[in-house]
């Protein structure tokens, strides 16, 4: 079984041969940063293409077909276009905040992105409060969105930002609570350990009914956190044209766009890590033949397979349902998801006491 751990450890040892501690870390940090930024950008392109293609297929269309085979280079062309576009300087906006907002959104998603364990030894940061860190950093994005809406000095963006504030802060709760359920089951907050613990069975199977409920709640709440699908109220193109980023143009808009897609990936990746075993292959106790076959599939493929499964569900939901109204949105969170999450935590505690 090949793990990226071998590669990263070899690299670490190789660097240490020639450099002292500080310089090794420095070079490693640089490498990690470069790799993460590249993967971030490439993933975003891939996701944009996937979304456009899947959305088109849901709608009986073909989607992009012109640039490259199956339109694969379409998002590359889009990036070139967006880089070449003029950044329109608006007169009555708060210039400083207006520029910072986009960066804040993208920094938040980048920080979260770094904590995702893609494979054994393939994550930028792994510390003992990993889940807590994920929740904390991912909610920074809302500040960027609020700033974008506020600083644009437009009525549409203002309404969009206010909606997004209400939405993100509410859904943060059930998001956290459903992850807490898994923390109860695993007993740790470190992501790498959570994945390791699923070698004998994914938590969604191990945790029984409470884990399944938590998984569904997390998918819904996480989906709402990404401002997409039926929860795209802050953008609500039929109501607020483009919501909080109405006034942005060129690459400044590109930041929001990129962050939106990556947030979708991050939410799916966390779901995969916490519930579906991360990069762990599917193991069924007793079926050694099957387990061996599964082991031949590289863990990275497992990770991305699971993540794209979650993304597909998100896209499926997004392209099937109408948008919620703001009161429905809050009702769903405070009257349905929150109580269910609380009950679910207790259920999980009982489950852990009974079966573990």
């Amino acid at each position, binding site marked *: 079984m090949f793990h990226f751990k071998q590669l990263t450890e070899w690299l670490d040892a190789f660097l240490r041969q020639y450099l002292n501690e500080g310089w090794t870390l420095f070079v490693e940090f640089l490498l990690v940063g470069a790799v993460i930024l590249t993967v971030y950008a490439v993933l975003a392109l891939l996701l944009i293409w996937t979304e456009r293609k899947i959305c088109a297929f849901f709608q009986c269309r073909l989607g992009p077909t012109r640039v490259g085979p199956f339109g694969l280079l379409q998002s590359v062309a889009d990036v070139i276009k967006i880089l070449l576009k003029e950044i329109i300087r608006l007169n009555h906006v708060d210039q400083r905040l207006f520029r910072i907002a986009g960066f804040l959104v993208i920094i938040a998603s980048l920080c979260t992105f770094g904590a995702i364990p893609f494979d054994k030894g393939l994550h930028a940061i792994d510390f003992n409060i990993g889940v807590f860190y994920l929740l904390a950093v991912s909610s920074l994005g809302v500040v960027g969105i609020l700033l974008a809406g506020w600083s644009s000095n437009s009525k549409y963006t203002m309404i969009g930002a206010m909606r997004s504030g209400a939405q993100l802060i509410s859904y943060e709760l059930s998001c956290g609570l459903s992850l807490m359920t898994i923390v109860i089951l695993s007993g740790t907050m470190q992501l790498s350990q959570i994945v390791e613990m699923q070698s004998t069975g994914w938590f969604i199977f191990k945790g029984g009914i409470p884990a399944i409920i938590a998984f569904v709640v997390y998918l819904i709440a996480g989906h709402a956190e990404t401002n997409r699908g039926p929860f795209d109220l802050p953008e609500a193109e039929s109501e607020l044209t483009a919501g909080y980023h109405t006034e942005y143009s060129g690459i400044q808009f590109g930041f929001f766009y990129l962050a939106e897609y990556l947030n979708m990936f991050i939410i799916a990746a966390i779901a995969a890590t916490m519930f579906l075993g991360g990069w762990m292959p599917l193991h069924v106790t007793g079926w050694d033949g099957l387990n061996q076959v599964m082991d031949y599939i590289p863990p990275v493929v497992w990770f991305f397979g699971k993540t794209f499964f979650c993304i597909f569900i998100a896209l499926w939901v997004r392209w099937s*349902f109408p948008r919620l109204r703001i009161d429905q949105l809050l009702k769903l969170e405070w009257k349905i998801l929150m109580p269910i999450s609380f009950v679910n935590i207790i259920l999980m505690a009982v489950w852990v006491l009974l079966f573990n």
Partner: protein
Amino acid sequence: MITLEKIQSLLPFANAVENKGDIFTTAIPADNFLEAATILKDGGFDYLRDIVGIDNGESLGVVLSISSTEHPEAIVMLKTLTVDRENPRLASVKDLWLSAALYEREVHDFFGIRFEGNPDMRRLFLRQDWKGFPLRKDYDDNLEINPIPTENEDLDALENLPEIDVNSEKSFEKQHSIFEKEEYVVNFGPQHPATHGVLHLRVSLEGEVIKKIDPNFGYIHRGIEKISEVYTYPQILHLTDRLDYLSGTINRHAVCLAVERGLELEVPERAHYIRTIIDELTRIASHLLGWGCMCMDMGAITAFVYGMRDREKIMDIFEETCGGRLMANYSTIGGVMMDLHPNFQRKVREFIPYMRKMLKEHHLLFTGNPIARGRMNGVGKLSREDAVSLGATGPVGRASGWSNDTRKKEPYAVYAKADFSEILREGGMTFDRYIIRLDEIEESLKIVEQLIDNIPEGSYSAKTKAIIKLPEGEYFQRVENARGEFCVFIDSRGDKYPYRIHFRSPSMTLVNVLKHITPGTKIADLIMLGGSLDYVIPCIDR
């Protein structure tokens, strides 16, 4: 039944009441105008169809077309006129019918008749700084008087309502404004993705909740009524497709029927059948788009694409037979332009089961959806009284329980031979307006199914003269288009051009409905309600 005697007894001061079929025409002196209107309103005539302005040369007049919901087959044309061309005044009937205020604004815009008592006498379609009244016969279209504007319209000019003091002799103008100074007013449109065209809504908000809206029209006004005054009747036909482009063939049918009635032309039975089938297919296409747009307004873009996909089948059928898709251009005076394509019947027969299957899918996809139901239930209540008073015909009125289907009330073409029911719902909620469209698709399929196999053989068009001159008189024809009652009013002076032609736009009243039902709802509801009313802006901006 409404008889000549009844109207005469109701209106003792009327000069003379004439009737042509069920249309009763009467002229009232301007002084008794409001009184006559009040008597009629109290006598059960609760539906004001339209107010048509006419420039008679030496005088300016208006024609009120009034009906009663109990006897919808009868129409009373209440006429009055004023000889003062400099400062024409007439009494406003805005307190009698909710729809009147908007109609009066239109008449004021084009003829300069000021309705005393109506505070909102802003221009409706033209810019506020326009000089002259375009539909008057002595209008000067010199570009020096009204140069092509190079600057945006001043929104503050929209804000002020000039009011005339009735009591004082001289007309000093007080200024009122629509919104308070401190209100949070957001412009929805004219370029907004969900206004279904270039409609401009100024919306006053309190957080997410709407306090008041003020619609503003005219961004694509093409002056079709004015153009038509120099067009021959066949030429007018091609403009009617471009009014409400989603029910273009039905509008065209109306003008054809009005002219045929004037010429007393015998239209072959085959043409009647073909027109009816084409009309119903248009209605299905329009309702599919209406359904899709409403879903899209609520955020379900996929449903919109499915609606468009099914509509495409109808467009293909049209293209094969009529040669055009959106602008089918098919009915002509005396019949239809070409005979049916040999494939037409086969394709329509194939379409009917396909559409039924897809309707089931549409219901599964959207009707049962708890999000959609949660948004539609209990929002946008339009009571029956309001619907009648606002003149909200078509599916919107029927969703409120007002039986107003012209196909049933005054059957034209071969609707009398088809067995179908008028869908009526009681609630008047957004959900009723949503579901009624899908139900009407089903009814239209039924009509098409009955007629498609029974199209009689024979000629598809009656012979007409090369130059069509309509005998002197007034001609009125109403049809049921996909949005409601579409009416044509032709005042002919025996020429090959109409002296005055007026189209009643069902969409205009629907925007008025929007104005009445939105206060208290949320922004998201405003968009959804717009979708549920399904207005088409080019029909308003004639």
